[in-house]
């Protein structure tokens, strides 16, 4: 199938078949991280720092080692030194060295014959700490006299005179912003703040690992990317990568948080120290919240100018993002997303990546984009309100389109923001009339999407069915979408395709299921690999017909003569070719390895209707609409699912999710009881429109769909609350207390 055929009707793509792993997942048979055991297996527990910042003076584990059932104890001393800086940071976060940098930082780990024995041993380990000053808030951490989180943490990009907690600095832009502001009829500015949010996957991290003294090991783990796990474990433990076989379990949600290591090297080290016995580590929910994820917290200054007829003339942002004790907040991504939806003559961006005594920030769905959207889309809404302009019309006037230069530089190819805005405007939700204390908010969001390193293989079974092997774990239905694209490529029924997710030894390197890439990248690679086998099948048929291979073409599951000149042959089905393959040259299989490009940018627009209780500040979401360009929806149900899931995560972030720290720098809400992700009764149905402006660089027009949906809810809800209360909240979460205070005082103090 040629790329110019992507506008054609498809037979399988765009249908909604049952997912191949559905049966396993509704019967409890699917095996997740904690669901396997092995003979002789030990259970491990991890000792974690009770302090936000402390020097570890001494760890005495002798008493613990003598307890019944204890087989191995590891501390930092059990891990090799001499790492490059990135590996050292990974190792430091896996297990503390001289310093504990945050509440929950791993200090030691124990493997024992039962969970209870391991936990008892943890309690028996004596650690002498020297408590050090800590800093939690991003605006506090950037002050010159702030407690220093880690000495010499700033990299080469940091200008002189910055706080020692600045890890990196970035600045970019184009055009003359002051000239742009001069041309505006209204210029507004403001400071916006967002709290850290956790990815909140329901499955805690879990793995079972085994490592022998000869350096050979294996691991079963819930992860978005097992090659990443292999690479990182090998690096921090000094192993040879290829000797470590990592098999991904089914994964109970990740959202970016399962793209790195936490407990995995500990399990391997414990296994090695216990003589190669398998070791299982399952995190508790409290450990997940204290020591994994979350995303960054942000403090953002924004200034935007607009003409009275709604054209954006200029914009500048300074984002300060706290990404935990090792840096790595998504500040540059946030900056790239800030004005990406708009064609503006002048933009300027400054970003600081800042350290604080918090867990190391992990990627979370469109990292950085939700914060940027909150700041920029809120301020645009304020300007629209002041100028009495329709928020969708303003966005239509400024929306980027094919050929425009993005706010961060490169030109856009075919994109669908305008189509998305138009579909939003036409939806009935935009005209439902509202009552007292109710308000409507509109906001756009952007994610650039990602292709990345990808390896796949396909093979033909003797009955004409097809096995596809990919390296991207299925988090939300990607087996189904990959099977659909495979079926479409061959022209065989969806049910004749099986998609397998392979361990690290079975394929070349694969990046994780992240960056909205699984369907896009594995799909593109599978298309290429499948076409290799189609070419091979055509060659074999050509040999049989004794004609030139170019005179055979493939259509709907059959090899056919290319035209009357090729000869008069009856088409041969894939089934027949498969049944004869042992006699025609042996197995037929294809593979494809590439760094996938042509990702196709993704834009979304959301409308939120809310009601605010003016006496308690409680916000109820009445109606919610997600409109997003999917390029091509391979399995529309799972595309809708991504839209809805992203939106609800954004709603949670906007309204009630936050990390609550005590004055001691310890996390106070390390449980789902008080880390309040949305529950079913908090929400209305989430309406969706899938816009399809095909990505010209993908064989089926796919754009990634997973991430964009989490960005617009933050500003959409803030804009809706502002419309309902006539008060603008510039900090998240918009918890009842904050909303009530804003109603009473006219501001949330940000």
């Amino acid at each position: 199938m040629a790329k110019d055929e992507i506008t054609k009707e498809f037979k399988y793509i765009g249908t909604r078949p049952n997912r191949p792993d559905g049966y396993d997942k509704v019967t409890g048979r699917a095996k997740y991280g904690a669901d396997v055991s092995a003979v002789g297996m030990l259970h491990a527990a991890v000792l974690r720092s009770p302090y936000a910042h402390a020097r570890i003076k001494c760890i005495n584990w002798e008493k613990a080692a003598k307890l019944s059932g204890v087989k191995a104890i590891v501390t930092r001393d059990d891990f090799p030194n001499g790492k490059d800086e990135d590996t050292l940071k990974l190792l430091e976060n896996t297990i503390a060295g001289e310093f504990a940098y945050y509440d929950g930082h791993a200090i030691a780990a124990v493997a024992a014959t039962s969970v209870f024995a391991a936990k008892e041993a943890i309690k028996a380990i004596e650690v002498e700490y020297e408590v050090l000053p800590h800093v939690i808030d991003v605006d506090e951490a950037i002050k010159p006299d702030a407690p220093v989180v880690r000495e010499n943490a700033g990299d080469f990009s940091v200008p002189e005179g910055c706080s020692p907690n600045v890890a990196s600095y970035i600045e970019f832009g184009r055009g003359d912003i002051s000239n742009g502001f001069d041309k505006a009829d209204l210029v507004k500015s403001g400071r916006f703040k967002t709290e850290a949010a956790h990815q909140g996957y329901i499955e805690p991290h879990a793995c079972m690992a085994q490592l022998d003294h000869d350096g050979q090991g294996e691991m079963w783990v819930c992860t978005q990317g097992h090659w990443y796990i292999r690479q990182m474990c090998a690096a921090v433990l000094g192993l040879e990568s290829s000797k470590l076989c990592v098999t991904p379990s089914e994964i109970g949600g990740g959202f970016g948080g399962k793209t790195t290591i936490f407990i995995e090297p500990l399990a391997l080290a414990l296994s090695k120290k216990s003589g190669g016995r398998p070791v299982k580590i399952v995190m508790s929910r409290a450990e997940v919240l204290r020591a994994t994820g979350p995303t960054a917290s942000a403090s953002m200054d924004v200034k935007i100018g607009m003409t009275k007829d709604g054209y954006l003339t200029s914009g500048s942002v300074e984002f300060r993002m706290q990404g935990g004790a090792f840096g790595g907040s998504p500040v540059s991504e946030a900056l790239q997303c800030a004005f990406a939806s708009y064609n503006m003559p002048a933009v300027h961006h400054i970003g600081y990546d800042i350290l604080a005594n918090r867990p190391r920030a992990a990627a979370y769905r469109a990292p950085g984009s939700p914060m940027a959207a909150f700041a920029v889309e809120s301020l645009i809404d304020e300007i629209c309100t002041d100028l009495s302009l329709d928020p969708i019309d303003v966005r239509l006037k400024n929306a980027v389109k094919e050929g425009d230069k993005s706010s961060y530089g490169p030109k856009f190819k075919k994109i669908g923001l305008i189509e998305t805005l138009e579909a939003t405007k036409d939806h009935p939700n935009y005209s439902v009339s509202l009552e007292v204390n109710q308000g409507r908010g509109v906001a756009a969001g952007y994610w650039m999407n990602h292709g990345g390193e990808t390896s796949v293989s396909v093979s033909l079974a003797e009955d004409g069915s097809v096995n596809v092997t990919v390296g991207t774990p299925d988090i939300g239905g990607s087996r189904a979408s990959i099977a659909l694209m495979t079926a479409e490529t061959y022209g065989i029924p969806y049910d004749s395709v099986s998609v397998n997710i392979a361990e690290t030894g079975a394929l070349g390197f694969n990046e994780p299921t992240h960056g909205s890439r699984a369907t896009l990248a594995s799909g593109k690679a599978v298309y290429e690999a499948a076409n290799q086998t189609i070419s091979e099948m055509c060659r074999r048929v050509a040999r049989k017909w004794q004609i030139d291979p170019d005179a055979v073409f493939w259509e709907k599951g059959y090899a056919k003569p290319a035209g009357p000149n090729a000869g008069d042959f009856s088409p041969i089905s894939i089934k027949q070719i498969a049944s004869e393959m042992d006699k025609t040259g042996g197995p037929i299989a294809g593979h494809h390895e590439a760094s996938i490009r042509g990702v196709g940018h993704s834009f979304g627009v959301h409308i939120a209707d809310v009601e605010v209780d003016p006496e308690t500040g409680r916000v109820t979401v009445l109606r919610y609409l997600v409109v997003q360009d999917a390029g091509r929806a391979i399995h529309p149900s799972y595309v809708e699912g991504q839209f809805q899931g992203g939106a609800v995560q954004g709603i949670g972030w906007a309204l009630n999710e936050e990390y609550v720290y005590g004055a001691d720098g310890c996390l106070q809400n390390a449980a789902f009881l008080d880390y309040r992700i949305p529950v079913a009764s908090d929400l209305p149905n989430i309406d969706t429109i899938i816009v399809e402006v095909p990505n010209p660089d993908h064989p089926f027009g796919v754009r990634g769909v997973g991430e964009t949906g989490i960005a617009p809810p933050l500003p959409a809800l803030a804009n809706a609350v502002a419309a309902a209360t006539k008060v603008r909240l510039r900090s998240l979460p918009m918890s009842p207390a904050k909303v009530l205070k804003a109603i009473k005082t006219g501001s949330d103090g940000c």
Partner: protein
Amino acid sequence: MAVNVYLWTSLKKFTNEEDRLSIEAKSIGELVGVLERDFPGLKPFIDSGISFAVNGELSNPNSNEPLPDGAEIYLMQKLKGG
């Protein structure tokens, strides 16, 4: 054969305050070599991971694929995804 290279603002201090360079290079790999030779201050940035957008399309730093003449190349910080 020259390509147009755009740098983000904070890199200007290593390129004599230029944020746009015209460089003779036939591939990204060659471009990286020229940048590192002529502007050594860029090396740590390149080493720490950097992306190149070639006419709107991200490319690898070691790519040997030929660059189109007059290509518009943006240096970008390496991206994460959730």
